[in-house]
């Protein structure tokens, strides 16, 4: 099963926009933390609809933004949304996390939202990130599928790609092994998703209100920040 087999279908039936909407609750915090200066070059891995680059162009005056995705239909949609929004310094490429098509030291900051765990070899991906970043460049890696987030464990059942489920300390160790200093690590809560009153549970997705609160407000997304 390839990334494009899986995710082209997501793009075709609108799940790219659905993810953007849900991920934005936490992604906006990740993006606002990035120490991006005017003119910087930013790479977004597994860009989906491409919203992180549009947000960085709107708020931080990036020089250039590149979105990489393994699913051609995702890149196609992302390019269209970005043109419609009038950005002319953001481009998209189809590529794989395992062999980034960017020169050594060519990127100031890399970001990835809810995509890293799909990498077929996450340690190789980290080495590639360390390679393309200039010395002192940062990697903001946000994942909602990880060991401590027990509510995410079942996601693997619904997807044909093998997912990586590290815990927070495994993220730190793997970053360091790849030559990225770990700067900081944090859980970013989703404070915006609406959680119904207790009487509405069980819902289609949640057994109990406590479980849903824990998933979104406590665990949220795990952000690990590395520096090359």
């Amino acid at each position, binding site marked *: 099963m390839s990334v494009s087999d899986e995710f082209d279908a997501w793009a075709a039936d609108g799940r790219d926009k659905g993810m953007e909407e849900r991920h934005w609750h936490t992604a906006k915090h990740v993006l606002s933390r990035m120490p991006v200066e005017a003119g910087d070059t930013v790479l977004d891995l597994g860009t989906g609809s491409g919203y992180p680059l549009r947000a960085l162009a709107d708020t931080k005056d990036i020089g250039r933004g590149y979105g990489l995705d393994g699913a051609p239909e995702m890149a196609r949609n992302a390019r269209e949304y970005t043109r419609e929004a009038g950005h002319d310094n953001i481009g998209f*490429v189809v590529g*794989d996390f395992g062999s980034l098509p*960017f020169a*050594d030291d060519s990127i100031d900051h890399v970001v990835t939202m809810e995509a890293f765990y799909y990498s077929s070899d996450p340690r190789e991906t980290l080495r590639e990130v360390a390679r393309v970043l200039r010395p002192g460049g940062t990697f903001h890696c946000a994942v909602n599928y990880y060991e401590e987030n027990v509510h995410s464990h079942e996601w693997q059942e619904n997807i044909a790609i093998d997912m990586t489920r590290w815990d927070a300390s495994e993220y730190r160790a793997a970053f360091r092994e790849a030559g990225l200093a770990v700067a900081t690590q944090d859980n970013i809560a989703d404070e915006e998703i609406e959680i119904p009153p207790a009487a509405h549970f069980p819902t289609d997705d949640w057994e109990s209100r406590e479980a849903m609160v824990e998933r979104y407000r406590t665990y949220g997304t795990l952000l690990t920040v590395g520096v090359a």
Partner: protein
Amino acid sequence: MQESLLDIVCCPLDKSDLELEAIRRDDDEVLEGRLVCTECSEEYPIEDGIPNLLPPDMREA
């Protein structure tokens, strides 16, 4: 794709420079064409403005 991408893009396999062969352009982008590795000569297609830089064995048929 914009030509400025050439400054930083490289062959996913051997990380060498790529050469642009443009087939169709609009005002600011290359819409159809190829990126060719200056080292291994591998060709990467550009379609609808998007270069496909997947390693060739991962590319769709």
